[in-house]
Structure formats: C-alpha cells, structure tokens
C-alpha cells in the first residue's frame, strides 16, 4: 500500500495525488492516442462511440452523482446540443469551431431555464418533471419541422476545422482524435470543478440542503449552475453524436436514451468520473456484444435467433443485478478489488459497508 507523505497543501490540490498516479493516467492517455493506429476502422468507430457516451455520462454525472439531482430528461439536452450545432452550421453558416461550443452554451442555458422552475422539486418529483421535458422535446422536434426536418431528420455535415476534415467514415482516426480531445477537456473541467469551491457546494447540496444553506450556499442557484454545467456537457455530447451518426431525427433522442443515460451512470458508479467511463463502455458496447453472442449461438445451433427487445432486457437485467449486488457500480467494485490487493491479506468484507447514518434534523420544509 502506498503512503503519500504530504509536505504542502498543494498535494491535496493537484490533479494527481502522486507521481505514479500521474504516470498511469498519462499512460492510459498515450494508449488511447496510439490505439486507433493499430485497430480496425470498425473498432475505432466503437471507441469513438464509447467516448461520446462517456462525455454525455459525465454531463449527467455532474448533476446526479455530484449534486444529487435526478434527471430523466437528459436526452432532451443531447437533442438541443445536436440540433443547435447542426442548425448553426447549416442555417447561419457558422464553422464547427464556433457552432460546437455555442451548442454547449445553448444546451446549458436551456438547462438553467429548466432548473429555475424545478429547483424546489426533489427526488422522484424532479425525475418526473425532467421526464416531461424529454417527452416534450421529442414532440417539439416534430412540430418544428421547417427548422428541424421533423421525422425526416437532418444530416450532419462533415466537420471542417480550418480546412481539415473530420469524418467518421472518411477519416475515422482523425474523428476519433477530435472526440478524444474533447473528452480530455471535459474530464479536466470536471476535475477542476470537483476540487474547487463549486464542486464542494454541489456535494453540500447533495448531502444536506439545510446545512448547505447554513454554510452560505445559495441552494437554488447552485442547483441551477449544476443543471447548466451538466446540460452544457450533455449538449456537447449531443453535437458529437449528431456528427457521429450522420443523420438524426426525433427518434434519435427518445425517452429511452434518457433512461439509458441514467442507467449508464448508475452501472458505472455514481459520483465519479470513472463511473461515467465504465458505464459508457457497457452501454456503447452492449448491443455489439449481444449481436456477437446471438450470431455465435445462431451458428452453433444452425438457427437464426432474433428476439425483439433483447437489448433492453439484458440491460435491465444488468441494472437489477448491479443494484442488488453492487450499488456502487463498476467503479465501486474496482475500488474494492484494488483495496483487496493493496491491503492483502488484511482486507475485510465489511470495509466498504455504508454505516447507517444518525438521525437527520427534521427538514424544515
């Protein structure tokens, strides 16, 4: 087990706790940069998809994992980001380098607009409120047909940054590189928020609104900021999704996507950046994995099996298993395994058991 001797306060402020940690994360980054040159185009596409989902997951994680506000409406903000990005390019002729951040800003502002009326809602009520938004946006896309193309959808143009083309099929490595770059930026922003007063005020609102107030945290405003940051990141992911899939319509961002996003971060592990990535791997690769297994079974038995709804069923089953056996998600499991080896042979089974918390002050409203 590693013991870090801290000699300055900076040891707790820095991005990495110690040199070895920095080394491993940078190695991972180096691997992510090198991998596309080794893998097939198909695999690069899958990795790109994972990263886009991870960005979306981080967006939702800020809100659900860090601030404790449930949202079942984040597909709506994927849609806002996606449509804003493409429409800014198509209708206003803005280049991607402007339309992309603007799409994030627009999605963020719409998130703040949603947070203002819903800031008094908690738990399941907030989830239902945001669920309504998801349904609403689905319909709005259809109604605003002249702008959005309705159910026919829109085509995302090839990304062009100062004459360099980024296309999923034409230049998959370059497209992957762009997504990786955005992912790293989002991770850095997320980490910075976590280690600054803003991130702590999120945690304060999550754990006890009443004492957050007593500490001088403006709860309604903090929630609005959390919504804004969360939906802005989600909007960026939506914009990238549009470019990734090439064509999209209202069906691309249904309520099912909202639910999948929430499942993704729960399976990955609430409250951590790692969780968003683990969840993204599961959600992005599961359809492929199911298809592979199905083909394998089909080849083995000589029949073709295609069960409709298989994906949702497997997804649901995985979620139930996680909630029953590993509520802390894949990241939680990883922490346990790591601790087991770090402390070997002194790991105890109850080390991560949550203690029952003591009486809470009666909520004052």
């Amino acid at each position, binding site marked *: 087990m590693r013991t870090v001797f801290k000699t300055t*306060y*900076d040891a*707790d*402020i820095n991005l990495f706790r110690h040199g070895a940690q920095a080394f491993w994360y940078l190695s991972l980054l180096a691997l992510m940069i090198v991998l596309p040159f080794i893998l097939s185009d198909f695999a690069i596409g899958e990795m790109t998809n994972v990263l886009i989902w991870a960005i979306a997951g981080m967006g939702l994680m800020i809100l659900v994992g860090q601030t404790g506000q449930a949202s079942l409406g984040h597909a709506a903000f994927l849609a806002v980001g996606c449509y804003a990005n493409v429409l800014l390019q198509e209708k206003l002729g803005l280049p991607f380098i402007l339309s992309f951040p603007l799409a994030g800003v627009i999605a963020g502002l719409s998130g703040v607009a949603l947070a203002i009326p819903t800031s008094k809602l908690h738990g399941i009520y907030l989830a239902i409120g945001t669920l309504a938004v998801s349904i609403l946006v689905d319909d709005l896309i259809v109604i605003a047909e002249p702008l959005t193309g309705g159910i026919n959808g829109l085509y995302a143009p090839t990304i062009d940054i100062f004459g360099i083309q980024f296309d999923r099929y034409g230049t998959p490595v370059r497209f992957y590189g762009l997504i990786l770059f955005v992912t790293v930026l989002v991770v850095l*922003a997320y980490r*910075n*928020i976590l*280690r*600054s*007063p*803003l991130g*702590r*005020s999120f*945690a*304060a609102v*999550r*754990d*006890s609104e*009443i*004492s*957050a*107030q*007593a*500490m*001088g*945290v*403006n*709860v309604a405003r903090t929630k609005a*900021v959390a919504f804004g*940051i969360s939906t802005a990141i989600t909007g960026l992911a939506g914009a990238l999704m549009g470019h990734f899939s090439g064509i999209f319509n209202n069906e691309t961002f249904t309520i099912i996507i909202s639910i999948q996003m929430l499942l993704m971060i729960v399976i990955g592990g609430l*409250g951590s950046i790692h969780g968003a990535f683990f969840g993204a791997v599961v959600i992005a690769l599961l359809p492929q994995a199911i298809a592979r297994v199905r083909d394998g079974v089909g080849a083995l038995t000589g029949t073709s099996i295609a069960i409709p709804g298989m994906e949702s069923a497997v997804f649901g089953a995985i979620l139930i298993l996680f909630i029953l056996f590993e509520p802390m998600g894949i990241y939680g499991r990883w922490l346990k395994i790591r601790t087991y080896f770090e402390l070997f042979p002194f790991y105890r089974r109850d080390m991560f058991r*949550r*203690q029952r*918390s*003591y*009486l*809470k*002050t009666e909520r*004052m409203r």
Partner: protein
Amino acid sequence: MSLLEVENVTLKFGGVTAVNNVSFSVEEGEVFALVGPNGAGKSTLFNLVSRFYDPVAGDIRFAGESILNKAPHEIARLGIARTFQNIELFEQATVLQNLLVGRHRHRRGNLFSETLFTPFVRREERRHREAVEKVIDFLDLQPYREKYIAGLPYGVRKVVEMGRALAIEPRLLLLDEPASGLSVEETQDVAYWVEDIKTQMGVTVLMVEHDMHLVSAVSDRVMALADGKMLAIGTAQEVQNHPKVIEAYIGVADENERVVA
C-alpha cells in the same frame, strides 16, 4: 449596541405558539445560553435567527441591522454560523471537504475561473486550506482529516460540525446542543473549546444546552424558556434558582403533598 437583538419575536405553527413574544440580546464577546425543557422553543429560536423560519411578529437584528429581509444562505455571509442538534454534515464527503464548505462564504472565484482552475483559484484553495487547518489544530481533528463522515463515530461528528461552523470565521456562533450525546470527557472538551472560542477567537457564542454543568461552566448569561415564553434571564446561578424555572422543570410544590424525606 448588542451584537444580536431579538425583539418581541413570536412564531406560530398552526395553533401552537412555539415562541411567544420573546426578547433578548446577546452582547459582543459573551457566551449566552438558552435552557429550558423539551419543546420550550430553544431550537425554534435558533431556526428563526438562521432564517429558516419567518416570525409572525417582532424583529431580529444582527449588528444593528434587521436580518428579516435576508435569505437563509445570506446569514452565513453576515458572519452567523450554526450547528445542528442532530448533526447535518455532508455524509459522502471527507472531514476536510466538510470544513472547506464552511469557507464558502469566503469564495472569491467564479464558475469560469474554477472550471479552468486558474492560479488565482489555486492560491485561494491554499488560503482556505490554511484557515481550515487552524480549525483542525484547534479541535484536534488531525486523525480524521481524510475520513468520510459516513464512517465516523458520533462524538467526532459533533466536533466536525463545530469545526465546520468555525471555518466560516463567524462573529456569532450558534451551537445547538453541542454536548448532547457526548461522554463526560467529550463534554469537558466542549467546555474548553467554547471558552477558547470566546477568549482566543473573540467569537460570540449563543448556545442551547441541557447539560447545566456545561452551561454554568461556560456561559456568562443564561435565559430560561418554557412553552415558548421567557422565564428568567441572568447568570447561570440566578436562573437555576429562579422559582419560575424550578417550577417549569419539576413542577410547583403542593403544600399538602409534601414528600416526606
């Protein structure tokens, strides 16, 4: 001018008058204790000063200015910190993070500088950390710095909560039953700390406490409440011997039913 002035404050919950026309003032630099049986309205008074409740009548002034037009989160910015009777810590955060939330009042960065984590934000973080470390030293919380609240014993949580309130660097500290549920030794620690908070830090303390030993050891003045009404105000000795207070606690002695000792 008194630091905190509560003037003819009344609060009703439906038909129940929780606080009935109560007035008192806390002078700068003193330890003022509120005592009384359960349901006397002590915690309600705290929640009134914290602005969690709105009084139906009366005024509350801090440093000469009415705070009734302030939102609850603005109270900490004025320099009023508080603890909670049943501990309201941020459970899924470390002790250090909890104390750092107490520094929120002193936050000078904004959304953008913090997202970019500019050198200014880093300097601010160091400054906050230094202030928090002073509190940690003061309350001997060093062993628990990196521990999550969810795994800490009750007594430590109580201390962390006091530390979090101190990290605000308040002018007025509201302690809601700082010694409830603590052992005798821990209660003595609290007594020393309250003494030091007053003398070394120059912070005025308003506390609710049932432990009369603690109250008489640390408080300059005591106010007794029962059924939302003020009974007596004075030194701990005076209040304890006040006939109305004795009546509220153990009832009035009936001449005909005197217990034979």
